[in-house]
């Protein structure tokens, strides 16, 4: 490699490092040193300030109203083969058991998608906790895409419910609606995950970031 090339790479790295923040890592952090009173006040951790990620959990699902809304907006499409192909390629989760029939394959796919959905929601939640709208938008795009797939292969969530797959919707409900716009996000249960002091600007940045995500070859 030519030395001037290396120099410019080094400069790019330095600019990056300057823009970033590592102090908490380098210096370490502690929230244990506060006085007893503060500690007592924190017995119920402020984690509760961040509303729970109710979004994917049966027992804390969104109001039925939103679900009806979702049903109207998302037509119950038949299982397209394109979607089925996509699902059979869901990365990172592989089942040791080979399932044979079409129904069983759908079961496997729903399980994999459900797990993936939870992972992506978890990542989105972590990004939101860190007030990182860009990163949250990135994961929101993944969440939306997974929801679109789930709606298309199991429109009412019946199959998922039948097999009790991970994150299956509770009785009488279908999958959560996607949130590709500010209005949809506001109505979506995902809005409960926004940091308490997040404003419109923050939500908009998150949505714009989600739009910027490309779904290309490597499954992202």
């Amino acid at each position: 490699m030519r030395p001037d090339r290396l120099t410019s790479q080094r400069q790019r790295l330095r600019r990056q490092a300057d823009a970033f923040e590592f102090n908490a890592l380098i210096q370490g952090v502690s929230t244990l040193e506060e006085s007893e009173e503060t500690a007592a006040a924190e017995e119920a951790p402020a984690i509760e300030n961040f509303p729970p990620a109710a979004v994917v959990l049966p027992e804390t699902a969104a109001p039925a109203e939103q679900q009806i809304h979702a049903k109207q907006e998302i037509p119950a499409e038949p299982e397209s083969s394109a979607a089925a192909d996509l699902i059979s390629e869901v990365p990172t989760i592989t089942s040791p058991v080979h399932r044979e029939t079409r129904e069983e394959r759908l079961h496997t796919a729903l399980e994999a998608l459900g797990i993936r959905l939870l992972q992506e929601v978890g990542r989105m939640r972590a990004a939101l906790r860190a007030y990182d709208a860009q990163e949250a938008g990135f994961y929101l795009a993944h969440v939306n895409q997974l929801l679109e797939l789930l709606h298309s292969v199991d429109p009412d969530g019946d199959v998922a419910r039948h097999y009790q797959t991970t994150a299956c919707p509770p009785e009488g409900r279908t999958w959560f609606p996607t949130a590709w716009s500010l209005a949809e996000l506001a109505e979506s249960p995902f809005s409960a995950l926004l940091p308490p002091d997040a404003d419109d600007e923050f939500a908009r940045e998150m949505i714009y970031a989600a739009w910027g995500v490309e779904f290309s070859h490597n499954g992202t």
Partner: protein
Amino acid sequence: MKIVAVVNQKGGVAKTTTTANLGACLAARGYRTLLIDLDPQANLTLGLGIEWYALECSLNHVLLDPDEVPLKNILHQIADLPLYLAPGHLDLAHAEAMLMPRPDSAYRLRNSLEDLFKEETFDWVFIDCPPSLGTLTQNAIVASSHLLIPTEPKFYAFAGMDTLNKMIVGLTKGLRFRIELLGVLLTMYERGTRLHQTIAEEIRERFGDKVFQTVIYKNVRLSESEVEGMPIILFDRRATGAQNYEQLAEEILNRATG
């Protein structure tokens, strides 16, 4: 005792490889070492020769129902060493979901470890984290005294550490914990690659002596030992990978005592 979360939200940076092999090197020196597989992919468990899908109980049970399944009950001893594994399972992804809405969700692992330590003692505990910053990784951070961050000498290394930094700062707003950096470990290092050298220098520039002197070179024997289901020091002691992790163990012990 040090409890070390091996963390980096990027996958494939050698978190699991480091947990298994550093743990084995310390155990081989006589230190009682506990490894915790907190990744639903359960690669650490498989890589140490235990087939998670055949297990009756694994970490997900402990996190969800510690009264029914205490951590002590799921430990497996590895290779006659003072090395113990709390196996992971795909169902950890499910546990993560079940835990999310609970107010104590981030303290589950810490509570289980505290119960375990009433009956058993360990010198080192390493927690292999999933490649995400969700509830499971929060559990690891809250339960740990130290962080070990493996990273490849790649351009995104700084961005990854910035994200991790943000997460830690975010957690301080709501959780009670104390953590310090044990070190940043350069992995998959390729000898003679100028770019790797440059990136390594820049990381050392920012993180100073928090970067381990030891570097883990790219070495295919590490992947092979994983497939064989054993730590590299038992598979091929002479391999570069084995020597690198031995050296890392030495360095960590010297730091801890010196």
